[in-house]
């Protein structure tokens, strides 16, 4: 247990000392929040500020997961930092858990801050189910950090990690409804959107905020399964040294983390419930 605590404490100190962490966890999503708040006239409509807030939160979670967890883990391996840990008696578990906890602790103040800004500057009513919302956002963060760690486990170097991250990051950014409103999607893009994990994050946050709904059960189940599968896989496939290469076919393990969302997407389409996602702009 003392190794877990020591790693979490050290990770937090290191994160606080890195400007890039501060930029991507706070400044960048805040810039997005203010720029799009202005573009969408968020002061005039509650739905617009919720839309912008969701966009900012989703961007933060995706960045935290793919870059904060995924790319950083590959960097540590490439720089022979993980190699030093390999000669100690610890297993990968405390390193991965510390990465999760650190990502969460760093991100939560931003979430609180952005809600306060939306409430005070843009007159957004305080969410009725704020606790549930924080729980759902935390779950999303853990799931996307798990996915980032699996990418780190199956990428042999920074170049491969960069390609895999972009392959996941951009579809999630543009096809989930986080940035481009989903009601402008043609039907086939909306079908694709059903298979994208970030869609469930975006829709879940909006549903809780706009409709005051209880936690979306299917999304939660998919996020929890993906997080567990991701953590188990990143532990099993963990590599301490850059010289330990993994076979190319191992990259297919990323699909295992995405599988719950593929099943959920297929189920949603089968049910015929692929109705337009929750959004202001189509109304």
């Amino acid at each position: 247990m003392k190794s877990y605590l020591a790693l979490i404490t050290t990770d937090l100190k290191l994160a606080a000392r890195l400007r890039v962490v501060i930029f991507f966890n706070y400044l960048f999503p805040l810039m997005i929040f203010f720029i799009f708040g202005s573009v969408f006239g968020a002061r005039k409509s509650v739905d617009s500020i919720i839309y912008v807030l969701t966009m900012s939160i989703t961007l933060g979670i995706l960045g935290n997961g793919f870059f904060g967890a995924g790319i950083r883990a590959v960097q540590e391996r490439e720089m022979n930092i993980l190699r030093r840990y390999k000669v100690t008696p610890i297993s990968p578990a405390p390193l991965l858990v510390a990465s999760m906890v650190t990502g969460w602790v760093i991100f939560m103040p931003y979430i609180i801050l952005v809600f306060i800004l939306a409430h005070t500057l843009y007159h957004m009513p305080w969410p009725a189910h704020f606790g549930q919302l924080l729980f759902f956002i935390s779950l999303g963060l853990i799931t996307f950090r798990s996915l980032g760690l699996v990418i780190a486990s199956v990428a042999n170097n920074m170049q491969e990690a960069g390609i895999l991250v972009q392959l996941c990051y951009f579809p999630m950014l543009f096809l989930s409804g986080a940035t481009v409103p989903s009601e402008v999607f043609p039907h086939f893009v909306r079908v694709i959107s059903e298979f994208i994990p970030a869609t469930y994050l975006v829709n879940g946050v909006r549903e809780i905020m706009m409709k005051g709904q209880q936690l979306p059960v299917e999304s939660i189940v998919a996020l929890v399964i993906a997080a567990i599968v991701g953590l188990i896989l990143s532990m099993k496939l963990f590599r301490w040294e850059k010289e330990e290469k993994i076979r190319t076919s191992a990259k297919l393990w990323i699909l295992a983390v995405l599988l719950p969302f593929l099943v959920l997407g297929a189920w949603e389409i089968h049910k015929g419930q692929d109705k337009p996602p929750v959004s202001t702009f189509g109304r």
Partner: protein
Amino acid sequence: MSTSPVISVQALRKSYADLEAVKGIDFEVSAGEVFGILGPNGAGKTTTVEILEGLRPRTGGNAMVLGFDPERQKQQLKDRIGVCLQATNLPAKIRTHEAIDLFGSFYSRSLTSEQLLKRLQLWDKRDSFYETLSGGQKQRLAIALGLVNDPQLLFLDEPTTGLDPQIRLEIHGLIEELKSEKRTVVLTTHYIEEAERLCDRVAIMDEGRIVAMGSPRELQQKSRGQSRIQIVCEQPLNAIQLPQWPEAMDSKLEPDGRSLTVYSNRPARTLFEIMRWLDQQGIQLEDVHLKRPTLEDVFVELTGKKLRD
């Protein structure tokens, strides 16, 4: 010796795909011994120690370290040994005392960062970030991390490679301290003078095999290479008939007539005879040098290549 060896290796082999890095080696290391593994890059030194540290599985043979099988009892073994790796790194923004406290938390017993930083002369740098340390300070920190669990067995993999001579001497001093504390040290190196100065015994490795093993002195004595005795006299010897000294293989008088070089298999005996002859002749001696064959000579003789190849 009745005590069981700290390290025992029999017929150890390691293959990577089509490359056989270690080709069946045997050796033992006793408690309190500084055991050197000497060889050029690619000889199999690092692979051998990494198998013993529990970092790599072996392909064949047996190995026991502190009574543990390094492949099957990795965790117990890692908890008991100290390791200073050849190529390693720490996060740029970690402070030296934080690094020691962090690594100390991984072991069932650990020394405090204050004890280690003072001992490794890093106390003044306790709040410095890793990225600001010099090469020598980083290496001292690496050794501090290797000592964090107060191990009785320490693996030092090329601890002075790439360091400037002054820092290398500092690290040598540290290793001598470890030796005086009766810790067992396994040291890999391709610096001859390091092995000669620090090691009780040395295994010379080449292309995955141990080609010679023994104390540096034993290895030097096994060498066919002869010692060189060089004397400088106050007056020229040109006019004098030089005798055939016992055990001397060859002698050569330099053009100045005052410098004489004699090659011998038993230099102590030959030197004594030379001194006696000079005394009988009433020739005053100005300077004398005796150069024994080095481990490098032994290495070249055994492998036909230089250590830094």
